[in-house]
């Protein structure tokens, strides 16, 4: 009767879990604030949760968290929204994995009286949420583009871009911002799709080190003269560096990136990455929680876009491009 035993054990476990959840939800009248990230695993979001938790504890709010299973998992985020609305959350902070597909679920939550704030990435349309607290990704790209232009000087640039994945607005904004910053004609922040003029090789890296490495290897095979590499984030940059090192080209190729994670800033200090644009997830989260608590107390919603700021981090400043040192970057970085 092994089966019966297993069944009994499973049933007991399930009941205990249900009891724990119910008692947790029944606790007090603290305002409940939900935070839904793209994944549970990316250090960027781990840091974001830490920031939210700290602010929630300080303000006496209760923080619920949820996430998709992987980057791009819209269904997981929809489920998290539904659960949080059911649990009585008054405010939901969300970093949308899929900027369009999440909109109907957000609309339902807002119809139920929930204030929804997008963190880090916008929704399409932007008006689908009450407010957006995020890095201006186009400016983040612009900064590294301008820095790269000055640093390359008169040398002719052969550019590879290791992008996010097709159609993702954050990826498009950073990529196009970089190109405009580098002085490629005809690119503006209004360009809705990825511009590939002046790019020798554009590949998707999914922001992942192993895939970034593969992409860089293939780009080098396509064009060995590549001497400037734009990467969507620092894991992709680390992968690109591995590939360049294997090809013996790490000294001759300039890598620029966006994010400002601690591992990434250490790579700036080590000279692996020339410059990176640093963003501030902790700030996004704590501002979101504060707005949520304020809404619960006063009924006043926030609206519009709030830029949470971006700084260029490099130890080789270029004339005319404002930047901070690696030391500053390390003091303000996220992750480990």
């Amino acid at each position: 009767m092994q089966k019966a035993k297993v069944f009994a054990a499973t049933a007991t476990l399930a009941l205990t879990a249900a009891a724990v959840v119910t008692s947790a939800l029944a606790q007090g009248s603290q305002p409940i604030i939900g935070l839904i990230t793209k994944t549970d695993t990316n250090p960027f979001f781990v840091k974001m949760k830490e920031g939210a938790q700290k602010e929630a504890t300080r303000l006496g709010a209760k923080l619920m968290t949820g996430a998709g299973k992987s980057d791009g998992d819209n269904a997981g985020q929809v489920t998290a929204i539904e659960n949080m609305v059911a649990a009585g959350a008054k405010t939901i902070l969300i970093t949308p994995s899929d900027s369009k597909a999440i909109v109907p679920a957000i609309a339902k939550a807002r119809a139920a009286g929930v204030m929804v704030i997008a963190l880090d990435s916008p929704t399409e349309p932007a008006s689908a949420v009450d407010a957006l607290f995020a890095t201006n990704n186009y400016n983040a790209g612009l900064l590294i583009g301008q820095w790269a232009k000055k640093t390359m000087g008169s040398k002719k640039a052969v550019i590879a871009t290791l992008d996010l994945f097709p159609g993702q607005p954050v990826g498009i904004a950073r990529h196009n911002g970089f190109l405009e910053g580098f002085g490629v004609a005809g690119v503006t922040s209004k360009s809705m799709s990825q511009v590939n003029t002046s790019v020798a090789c554009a590949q998707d890296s999914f922001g992942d080190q192993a895939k970034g490495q593969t992409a860089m290897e293939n780009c080098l095979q396509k064009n060995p003269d590549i001497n400037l590499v734009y990467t969507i984030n620092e894991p992709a940059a680390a992968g690109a560096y591995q590939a360049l090192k294997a090809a013996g080209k790490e000294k001759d190729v300039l890598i620029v990136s966006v994010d400002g994670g601690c591992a990434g800033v250490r790579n700036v200090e080590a000279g692996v990455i020339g410059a990176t644009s640093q963003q501030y997830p902790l700030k996004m989260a704590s501002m979101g929680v504060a707005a949520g608590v304020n809404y619960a107390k006063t009924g006043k919603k926030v609206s519009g876009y709030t830029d949470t700021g971006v700084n260029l981090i490099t130890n080789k400043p270029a004339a005319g491009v404002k930047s901070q040192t690696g030391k500053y970057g390390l003091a303000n970085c996220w992750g480990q």
Partner: protein
Amino acid sequence: MTQPTTAPPAKSGFQMPSLSTLGPLIALLLACIFFATQSDRFLTGNTLSLVLKQISYVAVLAIGQTLIILTAGIDLSCGVIMALGSMVMTKLAVEQGVPAVLAILLGLALTTVIGGLNGVLITRLRLPPFIATLGMYGIVFATTQIYSNAQTINNLPPALNFLGNTFNVLGVPFTFGAVLMVLLFALAWFFLGSTATGRHVYALGNNPEAVRLSGIFTDRLLIGVYATAGLFYGIAALILVGRVGAGDPNAGQTENLESITAAVLGGTSLFGGRGNVLGTLLGAIIVGVFRVGLTLAGVNSVYQVLITGILIILAVATDQFSRRKS
């Protein structure tokens, strides 16, 4: 329950249906011809070395996957077992000060045990392999995140990076990981084709009852197959670590399906008992060739996903067709 006991000798099922071996070869050839017309950099030693390097860890996962599919099973947890193995190896060596070789051995032991655990769930609790390994996927993935606190491990000792090192053959760099991959395929090919136990693995996928009646402990054999697969996942972990130069807790989430893709493209039947581990190598190479080839041709990488999808369907359709004919 029991059939009349004229136990047929376990049929090896080793004869290859010609169509499902030739199919992938033809696809690979056509792809190569096409890519060669698109870029003069395609037909070079460097491209070959790139493909081998890039597929090496998924292909080694796919050896384990093939063994399991031959028994009419499936393993959805192979990628995350690899990721856990790589985190254990790197974290022990870098943060706990364990000698690198010992850390590697402990990692291999762990993946072997987890693989074996899949086998135990399937044989003792009678869980379908799909369910047992799906559950294991969740358990192992979460364990990896908890164990690593979702943090990457850098600054590895040389022994952990070894398989990422290269040597030159006629000016073309090959990684030791790629060489190890080829050796492992040769070993698995010999094991499956030329040893009694290897034949039993095929037989298990064709007719487990007949295998049991011929006096073989089928449960023990099956647990052994899953544990061996786990060992391959551990070796794949070491190749991955060498390739990336870091322990990455988020690795392995798509590699489960990629390993199945390699096996299926190579003509291994998902119904068990038919296939060949060399076909799996071919399947992995096809995927790798498309990835490099499309980049050289300047094509967006989503097309690689599209084409792989089409190839999978063609491969399985070919298998079904040849099965119906025979």
